[in-house]
């Protein structure tokens, strides 16, 4: 089974490992699922060489392969475009299971996994908290929704968006034993031309700029929150 984990370079965080929390859980789940003799974990990221830190972290944690999709400026594209680019790369790599962080894109929308699944033609499930192997071509997962916590059996292939559970996840400590380097895959041939969409480009960023009011008591906190 080929498992592909889609990663995203989050904003700098002094306490962070270069991976978003949901991405970390997705990668840890992939590495836990994978039997080294039968499964292969590939980490994929669309971005510049300066943003390949999460891929190097994935290699250090035990991923067999790390692929950076280059050739485009992905910083300014919308989720449709990014999903198409990731799907194009994943098709070349080959995947039975695609794991992503549920809210790891720049704006925390959770839409890139859906666009990736759409372009791959794979079923998509969001908000996956736990997963375990259930045979060679199936998984058991846990999702919440509609007031229920459900355990489901999912046939592969599939794209699953992982949300960090109560315990989070920790990756194996960084190792220099993995000699593999991050591969560059360009999507420049006519069959994988990325069609830029315009759904996000017309949105105008505006600062929150509401300021922070400091108070001395809990009653004042409640009053201020009620007043605003």
């Amino acid at each position, binding site marked *: 089974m080929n498992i592909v984990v889609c990663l995203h370079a989050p904003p700098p965080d002094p306490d962070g490992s270069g991976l978003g929390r949901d991405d970390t859980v997705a990668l840890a789940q992939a590495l836990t699922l994978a039997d080294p003799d039968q499964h292969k974990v590939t980490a994929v990221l669309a971005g510049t060489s300066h943003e390949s830190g999460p891929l190097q972290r994935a290699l250090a944690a035990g991923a067999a392969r790390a692929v950076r999709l280059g050739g485009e400026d992905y910083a300014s594209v919308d989720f449709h475009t990014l999903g198409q680019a990731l799907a194009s790369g994943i098709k070349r790599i080959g995947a039975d299971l695609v794991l992503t962080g549920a809210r790891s894109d720049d704006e*925390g929308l959770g839409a890139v996994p859906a666009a990736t699944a759409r372009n791959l033609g794979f*079923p998509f499930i969001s908000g996956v908290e736990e997963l375990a192997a259930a045979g060679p071509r199936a998984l058991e997962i846990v999702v*919440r929704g509609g007031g229920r916590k*459900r355990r489901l059996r999912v046939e592969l292939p599939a794209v699953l968006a992982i949300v960090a559970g109560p315990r989070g996840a920790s990756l194996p400590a960084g190792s220099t034993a993995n000699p593999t380097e991050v591969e560059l895959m360009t999507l420049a041939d006519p069959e994988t031309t990325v069609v830029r969409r315009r759904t996000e480009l017309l949105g105008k960023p*505006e600062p929150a700029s509401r300021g922070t009011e*400091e108070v001395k008591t809990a009653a004042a906190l409640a009053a201020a929150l009620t007043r605003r």
Partner: protein
Amino acid sequence: MTVYAIVMTDRHVDENVAVQLGRAGADKVLACEGPGLSAPALDVTHGSALYAAVERIPPLLVLFPAGGTGAQLGPGLAARLGGAFAASADLEVGEAATPLADGVGRIFVRRWRGDRSSYRRLDPVELERPVVAVLPSGGAFVEHGTADVEVEVITCVAPAKVGVTELSSEADEFAAAALASTLVIVDPSLGEAAFAKLAAAAPAGVVVVDAAAAAPSIAMSVPRVVVAVGGRAPAIPGTPRSRVGAVLGSSAPRPPRAPADVMLKTAKGASTDTVIDELAASLPALAGGTTEKP
């Protein structure tokens, strides 16, 4: 503009549900009837039926209520429609008295970033594509329409191969968080007694959750008021109109990973028990604030 309400069900839509939707302001109810559609929504089981219903309209805006359905179905629907998606949003209505220029709309979606650091204002008319958005929780029921509403039934055929089987299902202990108007997120390091005290004092509409245990549900919630208690609150959910408070111990190394509108940093040497007692006593006021500003 016509407001459609979409109901997905595996049996004939309940007349009371249609009446309630009409009173809430729906001009027309589209009832998608098909096997398995009463189950909690997943894109893989409900996505194609929802798309079939939405495609009949076609919409300028598709709005999901809080509660997790939007997080499951919204991204997939936006991907199918080629539209924009806002996981946490609210609406803004333009007040221009004069006729609008071509390509400019009167309704805008303000899409808040996951970390609440900024938002984007999306105009579906200018985009020339629908915007799919998830709205925040709460607000009292306001009657905008009448009980006399037209119901159109759409027969939905189950996807040929879903590939998903339910093995077990139990009540979600954190379901209330997804629907909370006021969400109080408590750092587990404060201890069980502090959590229990706040939970016991929470009135209707105020939900107290453990920051670690309820992390997935917190991530999917869209409350109007958030109070993060303790120094290690997770990324705080919210919308442009959410109000965020933070209660930090004097030794907290840094504020929560989201801007707070109001911050209470306790005085050096202040008793945590006293602060928790005061906060517990203030929770009814927060519930009142939620009701006043739906």
